[in-house]
């Protein structure tokens, strides 16, 4: 009997290299790119602890990576789930709920015509630009599962619900041949002591994100 298929999850810590993303100064310089790398690594640990999944990170250190390279890696690994991680803002005392972005469906009459011509010639080709089109409904479901995970676990009745923003052009999701979302995570509290970042911010965030991804995988 063949072993059960292992799901492939690709996590994309946003930014990297000279593209630091948001940055702020509090007990030393901190930047979005560094925080997101820590977060992605912790989500990976959580996922592997809870399920038989292969998890890949688009970057494992501080390095510049183009959007095309991120998508190419996900497609090459045969991703079942793709989550690009970003921050919803710099740390402040004002709480910002997570925002989940789902790409728009692209209609391009010129490309559609070429696809039809290929099809009639017996060639099945999915143009890069339109690769996400067939995945939009699953991407939406992934977004809903992440939103549910946040709302159930983290809100505790007081925090605002996560926002699901769909049908907008998201660069890192264009050309993606799997369900995928861009997740803007709530930033840390501006008063959080950097020494407690791991325990009070990274771990709780990683937990609900991993739960959301597993919820999606298990429903498929």
């Amino acid at each position, binding site marked *: 009997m063949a072993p059960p298929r292992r799901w492939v999850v690709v996590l994309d810590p*946003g930014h990297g290299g000279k593209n*630091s993303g948001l940055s702020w100064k509090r007990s030393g310089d901190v930047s979005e790119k560094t925080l997101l790398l820590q977060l992605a690594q912790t989500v990976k640990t959580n996922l592997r602890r809870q399920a038989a999944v292969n998890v890949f990170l688009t970057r494992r250190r501080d390095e510049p990576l183009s959007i095309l390279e991120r998508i190419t890696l996900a497609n090459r690994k045969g991703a079942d789930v793709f989550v690009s991680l*970003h*921050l919803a803002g710099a740390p402040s005392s004002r709480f910002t709920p997570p925002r989940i972005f789902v790409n728009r469906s692209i209609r391009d009459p010129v490309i559609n015509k070429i696809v039809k011509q290929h099809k009639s010639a017996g060639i099945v080709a999915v143009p890069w630009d339109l690769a996400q089109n067939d995945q939009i409904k699953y991407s939406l479901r992934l977004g809903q599962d992440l939103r549910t995970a946040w709302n159930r676990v983290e809100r505790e009745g007081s925090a605002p619900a996560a926002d699901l923003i769909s049908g907008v*052009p998201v*660069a890192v999701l264009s050309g993606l041949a799997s369900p995928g979302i861009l997740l803007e995570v709530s930033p840390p509290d501006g008063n959080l002591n950097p020494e407690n970042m791991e325990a009070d911010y990274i771990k709780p965030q990683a937990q609900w994100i991993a739960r959301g991804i597993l919820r999606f995988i298990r429903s498929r």
Partner: protein
Amino acid sequence: MPMNVKQWLPSLLAGTGVVVLIAGALFLWGPWSRTVDLDGQAIPPSQAREIQMYFAQEDSPDYAEATLVVAKTDSLRKQMSRLLARMGTKTGKTGEPTLWPLAFKVRSAYLRSGGILILDFEKAVQYNQGVSAYTELLAVRSLLRTITANYAEVQSVQFLIGGQESETLAGHVDISRPLSLQDVSQ
């Protein structure tokens, strides 16, 4: 007894000076002088064109609005430069919105067939804009709403950076294709 030139000339010059000063003060005080272009030159009322600016808001589906005056005679590039400069400037006035957080300078702006406005930004400031995906989306939405509302011939905008097609302006929103307002609205 008639006054000679030496007697009346200083008075005449002083009088003329006062008149010039008063006229200058009136000009500076006048409403037209409040409208200046990017170089600080006053825009005469006959050449002024009002642009209604729309600012997408984080907590509301409605747009905040403000007015900008540009010169009708200005090139499209100059009008766009002025628009972007205003959208990124904090005026300090109560209720005056500011949204466009991306520090871009307009390199060129021209209209292509099919109602596509080509908006080409300087390359040097592409990185480290330091904005979230949502802020970037709202900024692009504000700009598209403002441009399409004021320039009837524009249906979509193709952003370029340094004359080249680019993936994003600040790392998130896909600008590889021309974008209409509908494309960036939920």
